[in-house]
Each structure stands twice: as structure tokens, then as C-alpha cells.
């Protein structure tokens, strides 16, 4: 069945004139300390997943579970093999990937890696989630839940992000037309595991209302802020730093320049995700360099 999908995918490429591989020229202004503005033109290419990108993808998902050892190679393999749904952004003729989005059906895929991730979510949910019952209820039909993996390098041009998400939307639409029996078309919920920060001094302030609480958080990926507003279940917890060493690797740091790192897990309905994609398009233009820094947790 998978083979059939891959063939269809390739067919689509030829028919629709390489719509899967788009070259986007993004003139990016470089401010050079009061000197004349220099425009640097960069070409990015959006690609289907393929095995050559294995090493890049593995390096992105190594830290997915806060440094806890899990079968990340298996997961990277699964992502690379799922050609029908998933988009990578990179450069022409290079196997390095700067970012990617994909959705994996957790009920369909038989893999130890997925099992380990679900176990992690379940354990953390038991400890920190006020809506644990709801989460468990949703997971009773695992074939309706998709693991939404959205990783990229920290300073990837924000203009590329809405395109990554839009591609995913197009992939789902295409699948619904071409292969409606595919498990990925019948998803109800998306599970997202991500990161956010909070300023250290705000901890000392009195309790705030839940709506303004969202505004206190600094998101590493700005679209999380948009999606979180429509999430059905969400919870966050302090990121566990390594207890054995003073210096820890980035993804395990509990404090970063006076900011506290949290892991954020939320469930969003697929239809809400698809509608919210339109709302993230306004952000890249709004974000100045300063805001970018703030939104990704750097002072």
C-alpha cells in the first residue's frame, strides 16, 4: 500500500510541475550597524522525505524526549520513509535539512519508538496534567491520533514556517482525494510535544488568570502560541536537567539566561490545526529581529 502511495506521489510531482519542490527566494534584510542595508538572497527548497536526510532528521529528534534515550533512529527511519505526508526544508543538492514537519499515525505504526514516546506522554500526563482523563480517553482510539513532529534549526527564517505547515495541509488534502483509506486521512487529533520558556522573575509574581498565563510564556516556535489557543488538552512541566553534570546540553537546560525551560505537550483537533494555519501567516512579517529573539527564548 505504501509503495502505491509513493508511486502516486511521484506521479503528482510530474503532473503538477514539481509543486513538491518549490524554490522560494527570500530576500532577507541584513542590518549592518547603521551601514547600508544589504540584501542577501537565499534559496530554500521544500522536499519530500527521503532516506538521504536520515542523519539531519535524527539530529533534530535526538532531544525530543529531553535527552531520555529512545529509539530515535527508528523514528528517523519512519519519518524518512513516509513520503506521502511530510515536508522538509533544505537547500538544493544538499542532504542537510534545516527543518521539517510531519504527522505520524500512532495507532498504525508498529514501532518501539512510538511506544516509548506514548509512555513518556502518559507518565508526564499522570503527574502534571489536570485533564489526564480526557487525554486517556482520546488515546483509547490511537488510530485517530497523529504525532505531529515539527522541528527546525533555531534561527530558520520565519517566512518559511507558514509554508511548511501549508504543505502539510496540501498533503492531507491530496491524500484525501487520492487515497481516502489511508490512515492519515482519518485523524481527529494531533499530539504535539514542544518547548517553551518563562522569565525567571515572573515566578515571584502572584497567580495570574489562565488567559494571561499564555501570554507570559515565550515560545521557541511562534506557531505553538497560535495552536495552543485552540488546543483541547494541554499541560506543561519543568524540563528535567541532568543531575549528574553541571554543564548540560541545550535541550536539557533548565535555565537559560534567567529563563526557565518547560516542556509543553498539547492535543489539538486536526480541523482546528488546519484552520489555525491561516493565522500564523501574519507573524513572520510582524516579527522583528528583536521579537524573534524573544519568541525563541533568547534575551
Amino acid at each position, binding site marked *: 500500500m505504501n509503495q502505491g502511495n509513493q508511486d502516486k506521489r511521484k506521479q503528482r510531482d510530474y503532473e503538477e510541475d514539481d509543486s513538491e519542490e518549490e524554490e522560494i527566494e527570500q530576500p532577507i534584510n541584513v542590518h549592518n550597524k547603521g551601514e547600508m542595508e544589504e540584501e542577501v538572497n537565499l534559496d530554500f527548497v521544500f522536499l519530500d522525505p527521503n532516506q538521504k536526510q536520515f*542523519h539531519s532528521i*535524527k539530529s533534530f529528534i535526538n*532531544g525530543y524526549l529531553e535527552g531520555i*534515550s529512545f529509539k530515535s533512529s527508528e523514528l528517523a527511519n519512519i519519518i524518512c520513509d513516509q513520503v506521502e505526508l511530510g515536508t522538509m526544508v533544505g537547500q538544493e543538492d544538499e542532504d542537510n535539512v534545516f527543518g521539517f514537519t510531519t504527522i505520524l499515525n500512532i495507532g498504525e505504526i508498529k514501532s518501539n519508538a512510538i511506544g516509548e514516546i506514548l509512555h513518556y506522554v502518559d507518565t508526564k500526563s499522570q503527574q502534571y496534567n489536570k485533564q489526564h482523563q480526557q487525554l486517556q480517553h482520546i488515546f483509547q482510539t490511537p488510530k485517530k491520533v497523529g504525532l505531529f513532529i515539527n522541528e527546525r534549526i533555531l534561527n530558520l527564517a520565519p517566512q518559511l514556517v507558514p509554508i511548511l505547515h501549508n504543505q502539510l495541509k496540501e498533503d492531507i488534502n491530496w491524500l484525501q482525494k487520492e487515497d481516502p483509506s489511508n490512515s492519515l486521512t482519518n485523524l481527529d487529533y494531533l499530539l504535539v510535544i514542544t518547548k517553551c520558556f518563562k522569565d525567571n522573575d515572573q515566578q515571584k509574581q502572584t497567580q495570574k488568570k489562565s488567559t494571561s498565563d499564555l501570554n507570559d510564556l515565550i515560545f521557541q516556535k511562534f506557531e505553538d502560541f497560535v495552536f495552543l489557543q485552540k488546543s483541547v488538552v494541554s499541560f506543561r512541566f519543568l524540563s528535567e536537567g*541532568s543531575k*549528574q553534570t553541571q*554543564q548540560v*546540553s541545550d535541550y536539557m537546560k533548565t535555565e537559560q539566561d534567567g529563563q526557565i525551560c518547560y516542556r509543553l505537550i498539547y492535543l489539538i483537533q486536526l480541523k482546528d490545526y488546519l484552520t489555525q494555519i491561516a493565522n500564523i501567516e501574519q507573524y513572520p512579517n510582524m516579527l522583528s529581529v528583536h521579537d524573534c529573539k524573544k519568541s525563541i527564548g533568547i534575551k
Partner: protein
Amino acid sequence: MANRCQFENSNDIGVFSKLTNAYCLVALGGSENFYSVFESELGLSMPVIHCSIGGTRIIGRLTAGNKNGLLVPNTCTDQELKQIRNSLPDEVKVKRVEEKLSALGNCVACNDYVALIHSDLDKETEEIIADTLGVEVFRTTVAQQVLVGTYCCFNNQGGLVHPLTTVEELDELANLLQIPLCAGTVNRGSDIIASGLVVNDIAAFCGLDTTSTEITVIEKIFKLQDKNKQNMEVQIRQDMMQELE
């Protein structure tokens, strides 16, 4: 024997550890799995030392050493240096090197007799290497890459180099080092040999993604196979020759 292991989901063993014929350095913070692989293979024959260099865990890429000595960069703090000195056997000389190119593990590849160094390393550093490690030093490149410590890895019996090394270069290097060399990859096609692999004369450790073909190549070139297996192979070959005759 070649063993597969992982340091916190990373297959870059050579980044987080340093293996020689007299000692083994490992980074802090790894899971017990990682240490147990090293200790079960090496435990009794040599000390396995937990340390950090300059507060970082990338000790494999920052240090260069063999059974005679260990060189650490100037980013290594006094406390760390003291700890390493105390944990190492007395025969091993430890020296801190003031060198602009501080990632010594990337700039120097060595065994107990010969060292290959980065073309831009200071003359002073070259002398320190020759003196502390007790080796003959050669400035060279590997597959047109100056970072010799990254793209090749060798013990006293054989060596593995970057897959794009030409045959002429292989011959030249083999001549310099006086050991057989082979071009290959580790960790499922990665050409950064030394980050995925640590080796000494009795054992090798590589990332979990390393394919069985790569492991076979590693075991063959570094001569890590069991003596029994080797004898068996020789016996089979002799028998086959006899049959043909």
C-alpha cells in the same frame, strides 16, 4: 571486538569519549548503558575516567592522546586538569597546550608510534606532541581535509580513513604510518570517522546505527577479530587451496 553503543541518543561516540591503550576518558552525564559497555569490555585492563573539559562534554574532540600521554586544550580548567592527572596512571604524561586550534582531537590523529597533525598547528605544539606522546609527527591532509583527527582513526594495527580518500593518498599514508589503511564509513554512511568511532588495540566502540558491513570492515582493518576466528579462516583457506590442487 567492535561494540555498538549510544551516548544519550547520539551515535557520536568519538565526541564523548577518548580511548587509548592505557586509559579511557568518558564524558559526564551519559546513561549507565553507555558506561557499562565500556567498562564490561575494558574494565579490568584500564581505568575508565569520567571527566569534562572546559565544562563541556565533547572531550573526545578536544583531547589527543595515546598510552604515553594526553594533551588537553587551554580551555581545560585547573580543577579538571588536576582531576584527570590524579585519575590517570602515573606513566601517562598530561600536558595542557596553548594552541589557537583548541580542538586537539580534530587536529591530531595518533597511535602509540605516529601522529598526523593539522597543517596549521604551531611548531611549538608539534614539538609538545612529539615529546609528550612519544611519536613521530607528520603534517598532512586526509582526502584534502585538514582536520586529520576527524577524518581518520587508527590504532597500532590498522586505520580507517574518509571514504573519498584516493588510492594514491591511501598508499602514501599507509607508508607514513606503516600500518594497513582502508577507506570506509561509520554510523550508516557518515564520513566523519573519528566522531563515530573510538578504537584501541583490543576493542572498538561505534554508534548504534553502524551497519554490519561497516562493523566487519572495522573489525578487519583494526585486527579486532577473535584469534580463534582468524585461525579458523586461515584453516578454511588452506583446506580450500589443498582441494583445488
